């Protein structure tokens, strides 16, 4: 039931209007309430949508149930929750449409040179050889040995602590220290492990906010947050827009503005959600900005969730300052700071599902530990990764090599774009560059941006992600992931973009 907007005007307004506006609004509100209560459950809105799922679903089952329903008449289709209804809608985001297009017509240098090249998936494929080498050298025997002891089936088959094995937490703490710089150390007792960073963020939101509350998030932001923060928690995400002129770094003024606007609307802001390094821009939050945000959160008495999942993929010369570093000082209330990390990016193992919640708040830790039962990491995978992360020589080599290779691809790619007159935002981390193609878009609007995106997909044969998918307020920006490419692919990508640029010039 939607909130009656006219009330807002009344709140700000002049007394005489109150009765004139309030009474009809109140009446309408109560009318809606009445209608909702007395609506017959059987005749509820029919969510008869054609199946969006796989076409392989057994035809017999579906058609027979449908025909029988129509003959029965009054009993409607059984409903799902309103939460589910919104999630079941078809994915119309360019992010997903692009991914589908690639899977239907994937580029292959030999087998399908006219296919679509994938630049929409933020995955690091540049260093798999290192991981494969580690496996072939270190895992001659199966993960589940039958020689008894810890590696035997009974060792890992049984119920484990649902928030992760202590050995893995210890190894992870060591790895995170390696990644975030020598100045920081992590306590395994303050860690909760989850099957991926996705549930880590959701669990934190469940702990820090009630339905109807909100988190402030600087734009452009990782579109997955819309799902992780909002789907099941009922928590709102309020975008705080950042611009190119600030290199997309958040300002305290805009945070403050957003906070106040929310308050006026009657929405309680519970915290700020930040990504550092950022996705999709790949920028790093300067130390002073982090300090300012910390101070702001103390002033407003709110939380900070810091997603540092790309912390090990910093290739630029700028320094990544982990929030953990700033918390050494005594006059900061650490209980409001919570970090999310994972192995999907830095260690390129998204399939294994490993995420971390790191918090300084004991109550949050207790609750998160209990909630982790819904998102636990599979035990054999934990064993495997404990081994890998404990091999600190390997992890150090991996991280350093990865940075070098990402940097190389980044420089090649950005140079290629420059040749076409396309500038990128300054990025020092991540697997992508944030390219400004606003000169090419037919109209300086989201619509124009999407048109360009489609041209890039269909004419240029590349799948990049338009800025609107990340809620960017300035049209024309595109995230281009280059770590799924090989060096030979770059000229082909540039050529594709050039083709589109020509098409745009000729049509304008």
């Amino acid at each position, binding site marked *: 039931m939607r909130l009656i907007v006219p009330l807002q005007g009344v709140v700000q307004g002049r007394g005489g209007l109150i009765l004139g506006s309030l009474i009809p609004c109140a009446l309408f509100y109560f009318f809606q309430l009445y209608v909702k209560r007395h609506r017959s459950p059987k005749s509820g809105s029919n969510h008869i949508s054609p199946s969006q799922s796989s076409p392989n679903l057994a035809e017999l089952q579906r058609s027979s149930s449908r025909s029988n329903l129509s003959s029965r008449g009054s009993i409607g289709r059984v409903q799902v929750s309103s939460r*589910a209804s919104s999630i079941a809608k078809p994915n119309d985001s360019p992010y997903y449409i692009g991914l589908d297009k690639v899977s239907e017509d994937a580029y292959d240098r030999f087998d399908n040179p006219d296919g679509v090249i994938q630049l929409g998936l933020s995955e690091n494929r540049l260093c798999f050889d290192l991981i494969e080498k580690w496996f072939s050298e270190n895992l001659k025997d199966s993960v589940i040995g039958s020689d008894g002891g810890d590696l035997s089936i009974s060792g890992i088959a049984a119920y484990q602590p649902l928030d992760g094995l202590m050995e893995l937490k210890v190894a992870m703490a060591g790895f995170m220290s390696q990644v975030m710089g020598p100045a920081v150390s992590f306590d395994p007792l303050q860690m909760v492990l989850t099957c*991926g960073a996705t549930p880590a963020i959701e669990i934190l939101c469940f702990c820090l906010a009630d339905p109807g509350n909100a988190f402030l998030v600087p734009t452009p932001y990782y579109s997955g947050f819309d799902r992780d923060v909002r789907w099941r928690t009922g928590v709102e995400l309020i975008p705080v827009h950042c611009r190119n002129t600030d290199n997309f770094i958040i300002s305290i003024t805009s945070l403050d503005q957003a906070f106040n606007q929310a308050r006026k609307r009657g929405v309680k802001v519970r915290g700020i959600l930040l990504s550092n390094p950022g996705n999709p821009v790949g920028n790093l939050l300067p130390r002073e900005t982090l300090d300012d945000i910390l101070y702001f959160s103390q002033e407003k008495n709110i939380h900070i969730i810091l997603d540092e999942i790309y912390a090990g993929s910093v290739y630029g010369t700028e320094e990544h300052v982990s929030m953990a570093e700033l918390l050494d000082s005594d006059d900061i209330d650490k209980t409001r700071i919570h970090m999310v990390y994972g192995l999907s990016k830095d260690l390129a193992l998204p399939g294994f599902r490993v995420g971390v919640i790191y918090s300084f708040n004991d109550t949050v830790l207790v609750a998160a530990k209990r909630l982790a039962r819904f998102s636990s990491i*599979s035990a054999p995978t934990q064993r495997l990764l404990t081994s890998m992360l404990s091999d600190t020589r390997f992890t150090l080599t991996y991280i350093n090599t990865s940075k070098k290779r990402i940097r190389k691809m980044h420089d090649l790619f950005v140079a290629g774009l420059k040749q076409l007159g396309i500038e990128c935002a300054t990025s020092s981390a991540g697997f992508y560059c944030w390219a400004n193609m606003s000169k090419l878009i037919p109209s300086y609007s989201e619509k124009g941006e999407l048109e360009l995106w489609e041209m890039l997909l269909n004419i240029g044969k590349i799948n990049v992600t338009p800025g609107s998918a990340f809620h960017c307020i300035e049209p024309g920006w595109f995230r281009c992931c280059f770590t799924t490419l090989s060096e030979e692919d770059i000229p082909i990508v540039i050529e594709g973009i050039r083709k589109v640029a020509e098409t745009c010039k000729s049509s304008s």
Partner: protein
Amino acid sequence: MAIEIEQQPSAVGLSKVAASETHGEDSPYFAGWKAYDEDPYDEHSNPSGVVQMGLAENQVSFDLLEDYLEKNSEASSWGSKEEVSSFRENALFQDYHGLQSFRKAMASFMEKIRGGRAKFDPERVVLTAGATAANELLTFILADPGDALLVPTPYYPGFDRDLRWRTGVKIVPIHCDSSNDFQITPKALEAAYNAAEAKNIKVRGVLITNPSNPLGATIQRAVLEEILDFVTRKNIHLVSDEIYSGSVFSSSEFISIAEVLAAQNYKKAERVHIVYSLSKDLGLPGFRVGTIYSYNDKVVTTARRMSSFTLISSQTQHLLAAMLSDKKFTENYIKTNRERLRKRYEMIIEGLRSAGIECLKGNAGLFCWMNLSPLLEKATREGELALWNSILHEVKLNISPGSSCHCSEPGWFRVCFANMSEQTLEVALKRIHNFMEQQRELKEMMIT
């Protein structure tokens, strides 16, 4: 007994979910585990410790798994060169559809457990990290905050947390009692539905566990048909948690809701969803492998997307796909596991009977439902908890009191028998024997 959480004088507030007690860890069900953790029985090092009989874990068939893995070690590692490229794909694979080979394997395994009497389509299998996640996910999908699911009592204490905590959904009990062996009746279904309606609570579905935990018994075909009828008339959902389906002592005695649907040509199928997991039948709870099987397309789509919060490691999927597709292995495993569980069950029933204790007639699961009501001083929940307490601290056995399972009749206890060796079970039975002797002597003394 409650787990004390010192509330930090933290200036910054937390959510209601974080502060809520719905995690249920303060109930006796979990407190008994604490007593066990502090003083665990060990044959050699701590023979007077607490024997854990409150954990429904299956340890009777590990050797079969170890045997398989020894003979098929390539399936579980990526040592060979040929496996290298598949490793790369696997480590990168995070598609919420799950590995097709694994879904196929799960579907075929579920078919085998039901003796081929039901067919499962791999495209309807949604993977989750355990049945705990599967039940919660389904609740999110089928009900809104404030709505209710009807659940027959007694039920698995974890449901209070899994179905209610984050979802905001309520559980309205369907009361069952010993007069008819705790079977669900249409009368009880109606009564529960009406009780919810009277409180203006919208009922979205019925959730049954078949075979039942804690009863250790399968639900009869006629009852399943009645339940299906009921949910159809009320236009609500039916979730059948069949996590113990592979632990039925005799294959012919388990009727899955899938079979009932098939017999009726899947007319009512779109409201039915089955939950399964490898934690009990295969004794692999640490692997976190659960599944939702739904006949409703929208639920499948939504569940898939929501499973992003609870994906199974691709490594685990790869590992188990080969094992579960192995016809010879699975057939032998299912048969042998059933046999061993049946033997254990008979052992404990006989042991309890000779101690003068009767149990509900069971035919499945990793536990039996024991009747200690004759021993109660007062036929109340308090009386039951007092008895539970003395069994925990004097007899040194952790068993689960019926009240933690919301049983309406005091005096029933769930006793697990598959999470220990036969020797340990004998030790436990001996202790019970002695305890019962003492109780008899006490009674005699009081009479004379």
